[in-house]
């Protein structure tokens, strides 16, 4: 086997892994192609829903069981974390942030279960970023009013107004690209390592790229979203 052949083979395999395959088409509006990422998201949603229903049964005010205690401490930890950033008065946004964090954590780790992580698809990260953008601007308008939102672009001096306006798009763009790039890069690096040394070496690297990086990116995404919201609500 020539070296060129094996490289080409690897490239093809990587490209195939990276391409978002269309699973099926919904036969309306001239056919809507439904990607793998969306289907995997549906699977994640189903799993999360079933787990929620299973674990959240039989909640007790007194003498909670071990499962309930664990669940409560996780939720408390999450809500304390977000309330610490956006303030106790804005706790209504906390469930959304926790939902995104949970979804991202599961989506980034689902590669371990053999699925293609949805976050490797630009559609998904873009959708998440657009939702974050909407939330960031909505929280600012809801808190300080539309007039203040319009005026605040010209502060502290009107010269910065173009930059402030660009920030509306730059913030979600950076969120989107950071998440997408990290997941894609991690995946590519892992594939290359596996192609070069398929034995033992990928294990510690897999812990870093598949597990740690995935959780870290989930954390960074919701952390920055909360931070931007807090900035907007000042």
């Amino acid at each position, binding site marked *: 086997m020539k070296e060129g052949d094996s490289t080409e083979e690897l490239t093809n395999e990587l490209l195939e892994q*990276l*391409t*978002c395959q269309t699973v099926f088409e919904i036969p309306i509006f001239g056919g*809507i*192609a*439904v*990607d793998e*990422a*969306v289907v995997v*998201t*549906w699977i*994640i*949603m189903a799993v*999360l*829903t079933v787990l*929620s*229903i299973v674990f*959240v049964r039989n*909640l*007790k*005010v*007194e003498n*909670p069981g071990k499962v*309930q205690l664990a*669940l*409560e401490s996780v*939720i*408390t930890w999450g*809500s304390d974390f977000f309330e610490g950033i956006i303030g106790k008065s804005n706790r209504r946004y906390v*469930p*959304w942030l*926790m*939902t*995104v964090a*949970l*979804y991202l954590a599961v989506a980034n780790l689902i590669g371990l279960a053999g699925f293609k992580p*949805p976050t*490797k*698809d*630009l*559609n*998904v990260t*873009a*959708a*998440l970023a*657009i*939702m974050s953008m909407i939330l960031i601007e909505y929280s600012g308008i809801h808190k300080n009013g539309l007039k203040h939102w319009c005026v605040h672009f010209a502060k502290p001096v009107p010269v910065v107004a173009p930059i402030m306006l660009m920030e509306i798009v730059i913030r979600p763009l950076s969120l989107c690209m950071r998440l997408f790039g990290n997941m*894609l890069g991690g995946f590519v690096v892992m594939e290359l390592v596996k192609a070069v040394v398929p034995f033992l070496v990928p294990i510690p690297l897999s812990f870093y790229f598949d597990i740690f990086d995935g959780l870290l990116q989930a954390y960074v995404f919701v952390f920055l979203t909360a931070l931007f919201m807090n900035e907007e609500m000042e």
Partner: protein
Amino acid sequence: MLRIDFNLVLTMINLVILFLILRKFLFRPIMNIMEKREAMISDGLKNAEDSQNQALELKSQYEEKLKGAGEESSQMIERARQEAKAEYDRILQDAGAEADRLMKSARETVDIEREQALRDMKSQVASLAMEAARKVLMDEGPGAGGRTAYDQFLKEAGDPHDRTEE
């Protein structure tokens, strides 16, 4: 990989649906249960505080009552002492009056007896004098000598009282 199409919208819809599902099945129930527990705990603390306050109030009431009882008992003792004193005084006074009365009656009896004795003596003296006079008269016969002897006798034996009585 690098294409943006309708899947973006699908993903956004998915996210919103996931949010609604998780809020209904995960966050709301757990937050509710934790709020309930918090309310229960704060209720319990409040109840404990209330009962403590009540107990303290009762305690102060009892202390007040106890103090009142002490005062009342000391008042009672004081009153009893005063009554006893009054009784004592009265008895003492009665005894004094009785003693006075006894003394007075005794003195009266003594006076009466002395008067009686005096009267007896006077009558005896008179008879003696008569006897003596008769004797003198019989010895010397009637005359001035007898008369002077009688006067002399009277002078020697008589009492100023007797003269006034005579």
